[in-house]
């Protein structure tokens, strides 16, 4: 893990400017949606919905790290041939990937959370800033089911050879079904059920309850723990993938 953290941190520090600019996009897009809502409703937009979307944007950034970024990191390791070295070294590839994810969360997720916390503090009071930062930490821990779903998809990477189709579909699915920028109750019944089969909506709702209502609903916590089955499934599929790569000897010749 330490080796993975070192590698990830060194890579992140090389592009910290780009990564920090992502934090600026959080209030920018939330404000853009508010402005769109203001324009589309003849000037009657609810500021509470702005806060909902502001926290949603932080969760969106974290979800992108848990989905798209992990897929691209795996691609980076495989296309460069590093995966073979990692598989043969004492550092296990999955641990290195999780270290990358952790650094991603600290650099990008924390930056986004601080930006959001500052705005929420000015609108609702300083206590809510602490609640937002705490909610971000909770969301980071409970995002493992999303990571699990990403690991399941990595099984298809050797045959697809390029993560673009997988990452684009997964990252938009997280946002579309995740109730990140609007509650899933706006969907018809069928889509709401589909949304609850996936781990995103409950994850986002739980973190948002902590940040904006200072509550941690127990029922959602139970559901959230249930979704950890996705993480277990992801670990199992990752194990299968590594065994398949070891047997074929084709770690990087994609």
């Amino acid at each position, binding site marked *: 893990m330490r080796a993975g953290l070192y590698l990830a941190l060194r890579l992140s520090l090389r592009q910290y400017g780009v990564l920090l600019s992502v934090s600026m996009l959080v209030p920018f897009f939330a404000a853009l949606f508010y402005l*769109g*809502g203001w324009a*589309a409703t003849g000037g009657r937009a609810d500021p509470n*919905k702005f806060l909902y979307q502001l926290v949603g944007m932080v969760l969106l950034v974290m979800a992108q790290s848990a989905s798209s970024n992990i897929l691209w990191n795996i691609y980076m390791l495989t296309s460069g041939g590093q995966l073979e070295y990692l598989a043969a070294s004492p550092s296990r590839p999955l641990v290195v990937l999780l270290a990358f994810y952790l650094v991603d969360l600290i650099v990008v997720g924390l930056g986004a959370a601080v930006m959001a916390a500052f705005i929420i503090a000015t609108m609702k009071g300083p206590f809510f800033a602490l609640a937002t930062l705490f909610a971000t930490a909770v969301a980071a821990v409970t995002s493992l089911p999303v990571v699990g779903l990403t690991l399941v998809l990595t099984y298809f990477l050797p045959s697809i050879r390029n993560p673009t189709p997988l990452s684009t579909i997964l990252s938009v*699915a997280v946002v579309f079904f995740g109730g990140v*920028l609007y509650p899933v109750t*706006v969907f018809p019944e069928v889509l709401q059920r589909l949304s609850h089969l996936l781990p995103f909506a409950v994850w986002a709702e739980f973190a948002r309850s902590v940040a904006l209502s200072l509550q941690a609903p127990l029922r959602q916590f139970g559901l959230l723990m249930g979704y950890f089955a996705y993480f277990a499934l992801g670990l199992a599929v990752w194990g299968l993938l590594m065994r398949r790569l070891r047997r074929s000897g084709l770690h990087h010749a994609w």
Partner: protein
Amino acid sequence: MPGNLLRELWLITRLSFRPLSFFMASMLSTAMWLVVVLLAIAWYGGDISQTARFLFWGTAVFLIFSEQTWGAAMFNTLARTGVVDYVVASPEKLHAYLFASSLAYSVVAAPGVLILLGIYYLLLGELPPLAQPVYFAVAFVIFVTATALLVSLFTLLFIRLRNPNFVANALQWAVPLSGGMIPPTAMPPEAAQFFLLSPFHYVIAPVVYSTTGVWLADQLTTLALGAVVAVAFYVLALYAAKSAVGRYRATGNWGVE
């Protein structure tokens, strides 16, 4: 000339669909992202379906324009790898080639619009409104022609930039938003009046107005002004392409190399 245009259209469209799985994944995700944006804005309204109805065609317009803009941003690579040199060496005029390629990217956006329609139907159980079909057809032709010409101009700007992504991103939002992608008729009147000053309003907003049936100004005048703006974009594209070719012949490069 129309034959050449059609040949370029066919070649670029065929190229854009490859590989099909990537293309479909990209279109599906773009359409889903736009539905996310549409719902995120419509959620501010009391009746989400009513607001979504107003916003849908603006979203479709954005999808087409975005596809055209990113297609233009790709010319940066084509200039760097020498493909644009071949275009200049061929009997084809540069402005015609750029116009054809922008039109082709509008065609490429068509599956995305269909997916957008499908998701809208899935969410609301109905198709989006089309209050004035004849005006819609006229407005749509003006929109596609004018934006294809405008994007030809953007292409000539992009091939002078080392990395056009930031500018392309800004333009893909600035033009549709200032053109009435979110219908100005739904805005407070004092904000809506500003749109009358934007030339983009006359080529973008009529598509949205004709679907809702509510116009900011007189319908025929707005459409006529849209046609005038399209002609102005043609003149500008022709002039810019001639200048770019002249500069290329004098200096031997496009600016990005």
